[in-house]
């Protein structure tokens, strides 16, 4: 029945800990970024090859469906003009400000609906329903309400993105692990403190997924809006598409589409990086095998 000396005990504990703890290498943000980028570059190369193949097959004449080389050359030229950069800037400004507004609206609605049972019963399924509504269907109403103005576009961007953001928050709150809620209760977290220190952080992964989906909807709505609502002396990517079609300038059309795609992909990569970083911090990224 010998009692172990304290320092032997300490050593034993430290030894067990050292054996059990997993030595883990941390990946930097740059590595995460690169890890996601190179498969995309590979995909781009494949797509370009297929594109070139289709053009060479000769289903359409070259002036209707330009090949990748012509289009990329046109893209190079366009990137040298101030107008094109102006267009990109306008579109990004609209996209970001609309998305920011959508976050505000989505968070307010999500917070209210997840807290108040009556609101949940009334609006819960409506929000999901709104998500399935094609954003282009809102434009006639938006144009009636706001005219051919920037507000009409913003309106549709917000209404397209906000439901996803709200839903992300709501499901995050709903799926807060019960064991953590119990632990929080025992710790004495109540009401506002409970939200601040437990429920909101716990819903972060789901909220992030909502943001990502919200951005996708916002971006689509924005493009639809810019093609429909053309404002004089306001070049934008959608407007560029519109005029390229009117002028039957296939290379210019495809060059603009490439820019739209690239912006969409880059933002998606940003969300992906944020998501991976979160998973790594929380230890949700342990793969099996």
């Amino acid at each position, binding site marked *: 029945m010998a*009692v172990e000396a304290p320092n032997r005990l300490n050593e034993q504990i430290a030894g*067990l*800990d050292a054996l059990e703890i997993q030595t883990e290498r941390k990946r930097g943000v740059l590595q995460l970024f690169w890890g996601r980028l190179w498969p995309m570059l590979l995909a781009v190369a494949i797509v370009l090859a297929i594109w070139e193949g289709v053009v060479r097959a000769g289903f359409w004449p070259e002036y209707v469906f330009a090949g990748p080389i012509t289009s990329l050359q046109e893209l190079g030229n366009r990137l040298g003009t101030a107008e094109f950069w102006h267009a990109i800037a306008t579109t990004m400004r609209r996209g970001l400000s609309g998305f920011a507004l959508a976050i505000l609206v989505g968070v307010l609605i999500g917070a209210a609906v997840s807290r108040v049972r009556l609101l949940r019963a009334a609006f819960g399924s409506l929000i999901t329903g709104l998500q399935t509504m094609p954003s282009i269907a809102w434009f006639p109403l938006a144009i009636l309400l706001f005219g051919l103005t920037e507000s009409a576009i913003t309106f549709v961007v917000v209404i397209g993105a906000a439901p996803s953001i709200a839903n992300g928050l709501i499901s995050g709150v709903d799926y807060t692990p019960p064991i*953590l809620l119990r632990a929080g*209760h025992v*710790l*004495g977290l109540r009401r506002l403190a409970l939200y601040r220190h437990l429920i909101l952080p716990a819903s*972060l992964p789901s909220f992030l997924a909502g943001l990502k989906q919200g951005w996708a909807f916002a971006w689509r709505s924005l493009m639809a809006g810019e093609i429909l609502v053309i404002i004089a002396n306001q070049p934008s990517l959608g407007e560029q598409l519109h005029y390229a079609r009117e002028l039957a300038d296939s290379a210019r059309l495809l060059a603009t589409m490439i820019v739209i795609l690239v912006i969409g992909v880059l933002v998606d990569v940003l969300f992906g990086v944020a998501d991976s970083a979160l998973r790594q911090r929380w*230890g949700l990224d342990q793969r099996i095998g």
Partner: protein
Amino acid sequence: MTAPAQELGSGRSEGDTPAVRLDAVSKVYGRGPSSLLALDQVSLEAAQGEFVCLLGASGCGKSTMLNLVAGLDRPTAGTIETGGRKIAMMFQEPALFPWLTVSGNVELALRVQGLDRKARRARAAELLDVVHLGGFARKRPHELSGGMRQRVSLARALAQQADLLLMDEPFGALDAMTRDLLHDELERIWRERNLAVLFVTHNVREAVRLGDRVVLLSSRPGKVIEDYSVKLDRPRRTESRDVAELAGGITERLKEEVRRHGR
């Protein structure tokens, strides 16, 4: 842990108000024909400074009982008094918050008590030292092993400055060696702080190793059927003859109770 202390555990329940007192507590889950009587008129007391182990087959209402004491649920009938004592609880899972560091988890418990940032840091560091995790303050919970997480959870519970510590099979998922070490730690902390502990387990030897009393619960409905007082000297060893002998007797009684359900 130096010289073996004599008879510190038992004989502590001097007359004053108990740390926790359950009086004819019943708990029914659900309603109508599918309702389940989980606890049936359970009465139990534990004095301040007393270590009480609750023992029973799984499903006999041990967790239910702790949840009621912790205020996570309400009894259907009966009363629970804790005399306004602060209550901390440890679960079978560590239940740490993955978005906080090890230190952050402990600090959150201190934050609720209104300590400022600097005081929280310092206090959390002290508490992590108590559970031998001083070097892991900046780690995330998922970077630690199961036993280490459970120690963080213990540090977090200690941070609450509670008088009553509820533990629901806290070491059930750990290997024997780690569990032995944690028993020693827990015993030391319990004595230093004069805590009242309600410790749930289905491991008879663990109950005898730790408890001043071992309370045996029957299954469906949960009822107190025996209340053993463990008079063995501390510190005890799980593998010692005395512990094994007493555990043997209690196990027989437990088996008898379980067999009753087979008939």
